[in-house]
């Protein structure tokens, strides 16, 4: 163990002493933040572009650039979410819930400071798990078969529905179901049967997520701000952006829990940041005192810290199955796998034999990448907050144009705009009727997985639902989902509250 540590610091030291490395990692992290914060540019796309660009360099430089960008992009998604309530990625939608209210109070700078430090800590804790527990976590991740994937997807939709509704929870679930419906559009992945494609071959692959994401979050916000002649925020306080260390120590227990959740969710192959933020947000809410719970959705620092730590801890989690089994844990990790293969590094069970110290090297690079992200974030945040001082009638149309461009830029397809604009208009009316939008997007993101996994599971079990109750992880997930749904019925809620207070009392004794 001690050997490992000294080895690790030697690697880290060697990396830091080369100025080229530092330049690369800071540059990549900066580009990553831009990619994460612009609508339509994603971490996956950024890694794809950098993979070809870095091919000519050695694996060290390539990894520095790719991981720097990955960490930066996951963090960057929180900028537009906090400042203008348009999450750049589905993952940042949970951050928008509390980040934007803070901005409206004129505390956007504080929200960004919190996010930056929370993301940094999340990444580092994720790494700790990666280094110390990866074989154990990898074997846990392999407990997930089609049944669990289905339930996990359903869970993500249910909790995002529960958390985002401003009046009735059922409205959140309705939005989630609309998302699930949107996910069925396209040819189904098991039998290739066309569903709701209207004979358009562009719809064969289903609705692209990015145009829907931009349409659903961006367009309503643009219409709302312009039509209500609201300013985006109260005059922001343009002080120094602080790392908000005191807030971090106040929320230490939430940070530990959120990182664990992030690592866990990230390590399950195929899903990642999209769910982690939401799961962590809801657990943080449930674990808080009633007074704190009231703050959730109105600008709670606990909420922001929880969702952002989980998002970034996901990175470490996603790297676990990638490095130990060669199975990418999330879409950006899949791109990363491609990049590693290019450099002759095949991640997998025998990586320790073929490339000893590779895990430590990745960790050292990730540590550098998180520092770069933190430093970039601290410098950038202040400048970004200044954007809010631009009068909304000037600023928001530019945002609108960027949204449209972002939708088109993805695959340079005009068809994306035919999706983006109707979705945007429909979302505007939905949000005017106080239907939350986030569950709809989460429903679309996870719906395909829910549908495919459930049908595959039924195919494997000859149509029987019994295996669902025989698998421990599935049963736990099922119980949690039932708890969330039943808890909305007042009579049941009173009962469970009694149960919990009984438990609390018992603990006190």
């Amino acid at each position, binding site marked *: 163990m001690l050997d490992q540590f000294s080895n690790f610091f030697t690697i880290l030291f060697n990396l830091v002493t080369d100025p080229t490395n530092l330049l690369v990692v800071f540059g990549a992290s900066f580009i990553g933040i831009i990619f994460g914060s612009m609508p339509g540019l994603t971490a996956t796309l950024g890694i*794809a*572009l950098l*993979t*070809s*660009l870095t*091919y*000519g360099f050695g694996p060290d430089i390539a990894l520095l650039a790719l991981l720097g960008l990955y960490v930066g992009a996951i963090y960057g998604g929180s900028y537009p979410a906090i400042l203008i309530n348009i999450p750049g990625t589905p993952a940042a939608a949970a951050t928008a819930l509390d980040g934007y209210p803070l901005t409206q109070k004129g505390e956007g700078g504080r929200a960004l400071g919190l996010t930056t430090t929370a993301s940094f800590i999340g990444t580092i804790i994720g790494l700790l798990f990666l280094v110390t527990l990866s074989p154990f976590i990898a074997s846990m991740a*392999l*407990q*997930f*078969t*089609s049944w669990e994937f289905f339930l996990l997807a359903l869970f993500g939709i249910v909790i995002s529905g529960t958390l985002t509704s401003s009046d009735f929870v059922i409205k959140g679930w309705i939005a989630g179901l609309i998302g699930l419906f949107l996910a069925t559009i*396209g*040819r189904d*992945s*098991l*039998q*290739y049967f066309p569903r709701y494609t209207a004979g358009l*071959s562009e719809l*064969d*692959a*289903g609705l692209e997520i990015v145009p829907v994401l931009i349409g659903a979050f961006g367009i309503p916000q643009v219409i709302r701000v312009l039509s209500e002649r609201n300013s985006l925020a109260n005059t922001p306080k343009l002080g120094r952006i602080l790392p908000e260390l005191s807030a971090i120590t106040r929320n230490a227990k939430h940070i530990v829990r959120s990182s664990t959740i992030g690592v866990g969710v990230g390590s399950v*192959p*195929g899903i990642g940041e999209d769910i982690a933020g939401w799961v962590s947000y809801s657990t943080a809410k449930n674990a808080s005192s009633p007074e704190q719970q009231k703050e959730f959705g109105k600008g709670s620092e606990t909420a922001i810290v929880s969702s952002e730590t989980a998002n970034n801890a996901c990175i470490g989690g996603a790297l676990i199955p990638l490095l130990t*089994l*060669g*199975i*990418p844990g999330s879409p950006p990790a*899949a*791109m990363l*796998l*491609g*990049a590693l*293969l*290019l450099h*002759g590094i*095949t*991640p*997998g*069970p*025998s990586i320790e*034999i073929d490339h000893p110290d590779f895990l430590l090297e990745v960790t050292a690079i990730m540590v550098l990448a998180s520092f770069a992200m933190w430093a970039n974030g601290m410098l950038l945040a202040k400048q970004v907050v200044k954007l809010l001082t631009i009068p909304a009638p000037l600023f928001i149309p530019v945002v609108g144009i960027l949204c449209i461009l972002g939708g088109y830029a993805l695959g340079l397809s*005009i068809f994306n705009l035919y999706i983006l604009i109707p979705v945007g208009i429909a979302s505007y009316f939905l949000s005017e009727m106080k239907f939350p939008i986030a569950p709809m997007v989460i429903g679309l993101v996870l719906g395909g997985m829910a549908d495919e996994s459930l049908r*595959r599971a039924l*195919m*494997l079990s000859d149509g029987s639902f019994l295996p669902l109750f025989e698998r421990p992880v599935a049963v736990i997930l099922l119980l949690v989902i039932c708890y969330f749904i039943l808890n909305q019925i007042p009579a049941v809620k009173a009962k469970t509250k009694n149960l919990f207070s009984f438990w609390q009392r018992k603990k006190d004794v």
Partner: protein
Amino acid sequence: MNTVLNKITTLLLILMSVIASTADAARPYPVRPISNTVVWSAGGGTDAVNRMVMAEMSKVLKTRINVVNKTGGIAGSIGMNAVLRKRADGYNLVGLSSSNVVAAVNGGWNKRMDVWSPFIVGSSPDVISVSSNSEIKSLDDLVNQFNSSQKPFKAGAGGTGGIHHLYLLELARVSGIDFRFVPYPGSAPSQTAAITGEVEVVITSMAEQAQLIRGGKLRPLAMLHPDSFVLEDVGTIPSAFDKFPELATHLPLSQAIGFAINNEAPKEVKEKLGQAFEQVMKSPAVTEWAKQNYYQLSGKHGEAARKEFAELESFFTWTLQGLGSNKFSPEKFAIPKP
């Protein structure tokens, strides 16, 4: 509304092409970045080959080549359709494999493979494996267990109608074992399913499985290839052809992984790509990569590659027809019998 939008789009396109052509008129292909759409998932065999070769090609062609994945449909039909719809100017490549030749007869699209001009990089032999926790240690065990229990094995083998699926069907035919095929979006997820125990048997290529076999996650039963295979740290994996010589009537189908351009692309573009491809296939980066990743290199392009794909198409589709697991007859697309 639509026509107005279309007009605006056309106008913009004309404007852009005018700007582009005035800027690049003097320079030969390629003047701008090329994009390569891989129709199988990231991390799979076709994806890895394409990313590696494209990176080398971009050095020779002195332009950037962006590799993206567009999966789905039957046998990659969604990605192939998307690329074929784009202009045949040589800036849109498609990353594909011989598994794509059954797209038409399985109802994925209504084209034949002759719409492409392929560049074949190489292939890796298929291997049938079980989870390392399984009681089954050899092909004999598999047959015996089936004979005593008569319970079908759940089997993963990538997407419907892909080469691995075809191997599964052939093995089922000659061995009499009943396999229940479970489709996954690609080789990597079907291998994961074998490790988690969701399926009992998995067939994918050696290139895709070697890491998991060497790491003790999967146990190889047999090569679905006439020759046995020596894998370092593992030993010799016997050939299934020894036990079932009948496999040789249809197999081996040489799996051809590579990329292609629209066959209507200009002649000079094809020549330029061909020259670059030949140079790349000889480069140490590619040969070393092939050795490390259990690939046998081919290097065919132009007419030779078109001929090979036509043969593969006829072979695959008529084999499927013989097995009765296709949707449309190859006759519908005028595919000749092998």
